[in-house]
């Protein structure tokens, strides 16, 4: 068993076109480190120095990880992490 990470179209350049990749770790941060070792460049699109990027939504199963502790959210085998770029913009 592993943790599945679902990748949006715009980030599939980092996964060789794959819609999902697998990884392991005890927290979301660990998981992203693990995935980065096989899919270099992906992590920087999701995380910056301040934590999760503001305009990327990351979900753990059915919940926005921002409500679960962000990068320190605990993850376990069998979980699914979904990444969706925020749809945002406006005149400002």
């Amino acid at each position, binding site marked *: 068993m592993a943790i599945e990470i679902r990748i*949006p*179209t*715009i980030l599939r350049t980092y996964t060789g076109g794959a819609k999902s990749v697998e990884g392991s770790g005890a927290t979301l941060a660990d998981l992203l480190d693990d995935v980065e070792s096989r899919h270099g460049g992906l992590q920087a699109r999701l995380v910056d120095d301040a934590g999760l990027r503001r*305009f990327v*939504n990351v*979900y753990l199963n*059915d919940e*926005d990880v*921002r409500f679960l502790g962000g990068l320190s959210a605990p993850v376990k085998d069998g979980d699914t992490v*979904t990444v*969706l*770029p*925020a*749809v*945002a*913009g*406006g*005149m*400002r």
Partner: protein
Amino acid sequence: MLTISGALHAKILAHARADHPDEACGVIAGPAGQDRPERFIPMVNAERSPTFYRFDSMEQLRVWREMDDRDEEPVVVYHSHTATEAYPSRTDIAYASEPGAHYVLVSTREPDEAEFRSFRIADGAVTEEEIRVVADGPAE
């Protein structure tokens, strides 16, 4: 070129008017790979702002999963500008994340005149495209 039914065109305009003076936003889903907008999905503007929009993250997850299950994709991503022209702002360009989508912008700055334009936004580049409004087919 964006080809869209008259009914969907009208629905976008009606949503933009209804939410004015806040920006309205939503998507039109269609069968993957066919470039045909069919299923109108108005979204909540989580910012409830006259100058900014952002899909509510939980609503977006639900809608994106539903599209996945139905083998659909977001063919049109639309939003309104309420005081400026229907042209992508720097913010719109910075956050555009669906390179395959038609970005439709509507301006509601004039109460009785609608601006409705469509763009491709990819890698920071904006390209305006023609819009063809067609009679409503059986899919609608």
